[in-house]
């Protein structure tokens, strides 16, 4: 006696309605995937195009050499080292202020109207256009404080610009330390600062570091704030010299140099601006990749 065969349609049959739903889902998923890809593809294409165009000139010599023949040839050393100066100085100023401000906002501030205003100020500081930062730097540091057009003015302008993001990322790092640890410290009679020093800060270092590293690339890439406060078209500097500038001097900057080569220098060797863009972009991406790497590494070594 053979068993009757199983029914051809199961309970959960694939009705036309279900099929239509699944098709709509597949289409939607594909469209969204394309949208996501639309971000990756331009990045890859742009980088490739720039590298290809820059190829004839790229090499360590390009970075170490100085501009020659009225900037139509040669290298970018004064601009490269100028950017290092500007970035280093600005972060030297903005990091301590930013970390302390974040400690205040996360550890000391009570939730009242005054601190809501402070919060709003940080958000607005982050949204100020870079040209307005340039105008501020011009009015405040170059003229009012009488620092003149100098690395000092430019670095201070950059410092104000990078401050809000350092505050925000430090706050995030501090907030990721669980409240229970702080309460355990307070219960044994520790002061706020003792708690911060022993438990909160040491466990926030990775987040703070990531935030600072990310601002390195931002400070290196900005043009307008330095263009009007201390960076110049051209400055004669010795090839490969490590400390060619003083605080009062004006300097060249990579970001501004790219702008100059692309728009102000006639008859420039074709590969030159492309190569400058590649060095700038490459440095920025390298620094960001380092920050991401630091973040991933330290996330793996979590202490709780």
């Amino acid at each position: 006696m053979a068993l009757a065969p199983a029914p051809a349609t199961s309970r959960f049959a694939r009705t036309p309605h279900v099929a239509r739903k699944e098709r709509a889902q597949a289409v939607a998923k594909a469209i969204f995937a394309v949208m996501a890809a639309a971000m990756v593809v331009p990045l890859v294409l742009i980088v490739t195009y720039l590298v290809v165009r820059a190829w004839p000139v790229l090499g360590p010599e390009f970075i170490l050499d100085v501009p020659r023949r009225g900037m139509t040839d040669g290298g970018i050393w004064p601009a490269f080292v100028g950017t290092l100066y500007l970035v280093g100085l600005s972060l030297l100023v903005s990091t301590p202020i930013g970390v302390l401000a974040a400690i205040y906002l996360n550890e000391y501030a009570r939730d009242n109207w005054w601190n809501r205003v402070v919060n709003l100020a940080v958000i607005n500081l982050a949204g100020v256009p870079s040209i307005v930062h340039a105008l501020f730097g011009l009015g405040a540091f170059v003229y009012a404080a009488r620092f003149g057009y100098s690395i000092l003015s430019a670095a201070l302008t950059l410092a104000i610009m990078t401050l809000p993001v350092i505050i925000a990322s430090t706050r995030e790092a501090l907030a990721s330390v669980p409240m229970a640890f702080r309460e355990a410290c307070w219960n044994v009679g520790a002061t706020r600062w003792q708690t911060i020093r022993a438990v909160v800060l040491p466990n926030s270092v990775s987040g703070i570091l990531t935030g600072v590293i990310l601002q390195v690339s931002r400070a290196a890439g900005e043009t307008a704030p330095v263009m009007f406060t201390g960076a110049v078209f051209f400055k004669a500097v010795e090839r490969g010299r490590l400390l060619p500038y003083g605080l009062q001097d004006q300097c060249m900057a990579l970001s501004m140099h790219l702008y100059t080569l692309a728009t102000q220098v006639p008859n420039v060797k074709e590969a030159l601006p492309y190569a400058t863009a590649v060095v700038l972009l490459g440095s920025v991406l390298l620094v960001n990749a380092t920050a991401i790497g630091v973040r991933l590494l330290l996330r793996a070594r979590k202490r709780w």
Partner: protein
Amino acid sequence: MSAAFQKRIEVKDLRLAYDASEVIHGITFDVYQNEILAVIGPAQSGKSSMLRCLNRTIDFTASARWSGSVRVDGEDVRRSRDVFALRRKIGMVAPLPVGLPLSIYDNVAFAPRCSGLTRRGDLDPIVERCLRQAALWDEVKDRLASLGTALSGGQQQRLTIARALSHRPEILCLDEFSIAIDPVTTMRIEDVLKELRRELTIVLVTNLTQQARRLSDRTLFLWEGELVELDRTEVIFSEAARSQRTRDYVSGVFG
């Protein structure tokens, strides 16, 4: 008056509110030297909040407002000149075991360091004493440098007790310490408390009525912010209890 009947804590008409809702409606009680006072009651009765008023950690909750008087050794805690010294006088053990993300040694040495002690010669005996008193020494004595957060839940709770003892408190408050640990560790800690009561005064907040019965001299029954009854433990847990609600709670009619 002999030291045994000295009042360590005097609470008069304590009221506490978080924003607009009052959670403690005017309770009055005293805690005597060397007694174990159990505070029992269902969840959300205000037991934990009351403890936090004793050592002023309620200050860290922005929405909390309290009135009434809390005196520790005769001194009003609100007018206390050094609130950190107050917190060192009162040891506090939280419900969830919290090992600080420091080494075991540093966990216990944290409070003495905050007080100004820095030399290993001073800190070593303190660390050993506290870990012994918390019945944790034998398990960790060979790995004092390892991370406190890597211990098991029961070990972390004993570490918390060691930390609470590390600043030589005179009063020890425990807030539902056995919630997140196993029964064996609970029994060990109860033995520890029985040892400690010779030196300290203990306020034990617990939702385990049988634990209160095992350990305490007097029991305070708190229900929805009201002090229902405060008496000797054997009275609370018997038919002699004055309030029907008390009798119902301890016999498990509600809980």
